[in-house]
């Protein structure tokens, strides 16, 4: 047999959206290459969920249901994927490039003696082969990569590929894995949910980011105030992370997160090359800065030259009106 595996991620009893994007793209590529696509669902108590994948056009699911996956870390998942890929002689394995997806795909690649084309933003079929585009140098360049060894492993940047609704009957195959003796040597002993941020930065469709122009940590309430009615995540420049106003996980840029939301609103951020590297692939960029010469305006689609302390409250007012209307 040959075919494509699409790895799903289950969190709190639901499929994570980013992994459904990987499923969607796998189906598209599967059609172009005439390869069957099987979604892989792994975890504890996930069997029932597998049936619901029909909504996304999946007609075959491979389920690894195992109690030991309850508080497991990456290794058993990677072992399971490698074993399924070998036993099905998979041509390609699609992952989401979420934090977990990246860690698991790279481990699986080690077991398969290959590497992952990680963080793909575009996949094309050329002469029966995949040509994958991925940003490098934090998006300052794009690299076009071809796969030299089968199976080919790919991880897809969240938010770039679409999820399509469909309907299909799902045939479920249960797969039992021979985990290695060391598979469970790392355990997840606790999880602390981020409370202050309900929308995850790397998956957010709108981001409001603040920089040193906010003057002090407490003024980030202006950024949060705007993010809230927009349903947006809050980002930050490194300058304010270094000053301890925001945690490092909020940092956007070359040494922070690379994001590509539909809308990125940069407030009081100058637009240093390292910051631009992390957000320049956003679909629409808005900049609010009191200095009309600030480099951020060179990449912004829309700009307002003005003081954040005047502009942000007015934006929040407009955003609230919008939220009330919808």
């Amino acid at each position: 047999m040959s075919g494509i595996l699409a790895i799903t991620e289950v969190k709190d009893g639901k499929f994570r959206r980013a992994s459904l994007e990987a499923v969607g793209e796998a189906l598209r590529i599967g059609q172009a290459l005439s390869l069957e696509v099987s979604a892989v669902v792994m975890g504890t108590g996930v069997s029932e969920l597998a049936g619901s994948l029909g909504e996304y056009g999946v007609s075959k699911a491979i389920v690894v249901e195992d109690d030991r996956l309850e508080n497991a870390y990456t290794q058993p998942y990677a072992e399971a994927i490698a074993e399924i890929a070998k036993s099905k002689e998979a041509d390609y394995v699609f992952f989401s490039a979420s934090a977990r997806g990246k860690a698991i795909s790279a481990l699986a690649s080690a077991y398969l003696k290959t590497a992952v084309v990680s963080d793909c933003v575009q996949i094309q079929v050329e002469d029966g082969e995949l040509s994958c585009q991925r940003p490098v140098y934090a998006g300052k360049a794009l690299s076009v990569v071809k796969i030299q060894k089968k199976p080919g492993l790919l991880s897809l940047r969240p938010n770039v590929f679409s999820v399509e609704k469909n309907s299909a009957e799902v045939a479920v195959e249960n797969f039992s894995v021979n985990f290695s003796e060391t598979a469970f040597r790392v355990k997840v002993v606790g999880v602390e949910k981020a409370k202050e941020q309900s929308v995850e930065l790397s998956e957010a469709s709108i981001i409001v980011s603040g920089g040193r122009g906010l003057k002090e940590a407490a003024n980030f309430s202006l950024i949060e105030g705007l993010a809230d009615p927009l349903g947006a995540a809050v980002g930050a420049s490194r300058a304010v992370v270094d000053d301890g106003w925001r945690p490092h996980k909020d940092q956007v840029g070359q040494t922070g997160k690379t994001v590509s939301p539909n809308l990125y609103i940069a407030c009081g951020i100058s637009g240093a090359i390292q910051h631009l590297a992390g957000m320049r692939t956003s679909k629409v960029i808005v900049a609010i800065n009191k200095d009309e010469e600030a480099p951020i305006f060179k990449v912004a689609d829309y700009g307002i030259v003005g003081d954040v302390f005047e502009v942000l409250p007015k934006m929040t007012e407009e955003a609230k009106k919008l939220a009330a209307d919808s």
Partner: protein
Amino acid sequence: MKIVVCVKRVPDTATKIKVGAEGNVIDTKDVEFIPSPYDELAVEYAVRIQENQSDVEVVIVTLGPAEASTEKVLRRCLAIGANRAILIESAGTDHDPYVIASALANTIKEESPDLLLFGIQAIDDDYGQVSSITSALLDMPLLWGVSEPLELGGSTVKGRCEVDGGVEILESSFPCAASIKGSITDIRMCPLIKIRRASKKEIKNVSAQLEDSALSVEKLELPAERVGGRIVGQGADAVPELFRLLREEAKVL
């Protein structure tokens, strides 16, 4: 305890990327190289462990060309406080993660580290894989994306890792590997005396065993320059028009 830190030589973050004549790698003429920032943090973190505990050796391993710029990167790590360095010589650093990881693993095996540290990702190729592949080849458990200092205690290690939407607390058997994120520690200034001392520390050159490539980079392209948009207006008065444009023209609200 022996700590091995894997450090990659990368172009300075302020570098304006130009595509080289080959079409699939960057033009390195006039490029300043630095230790990849997350790797430098890993070195700094290893040195802090060394300062707080007796009998800790910190060894730097890099795979890259035997050039002055690579040596400079290694000397920088030695100045932070690492004891010695190993340079695995290869013509370039543009290999895929499997090729890099298998060469690193071959050399690291002989060092048998107790703790093996990586950056979460190298800021040139942005792969984020070498830590996972290297540790798998060495059969060491890996904590991916550690964001706070580890709790090292006897035969177990506790680590806190940022994942999408929160922090996971992990417990692993020890020896282990970890890839490091930005908030674990900060970079201190290097006093001159340490820089001077570093110039005398050992750098051992070994040759690389390179596997066949798993991936090939066909082309490197520069993204289309964003054409600067327009200034909607000045101050708070421009806000209603901005929202109209975002709704009706850009259709993102």
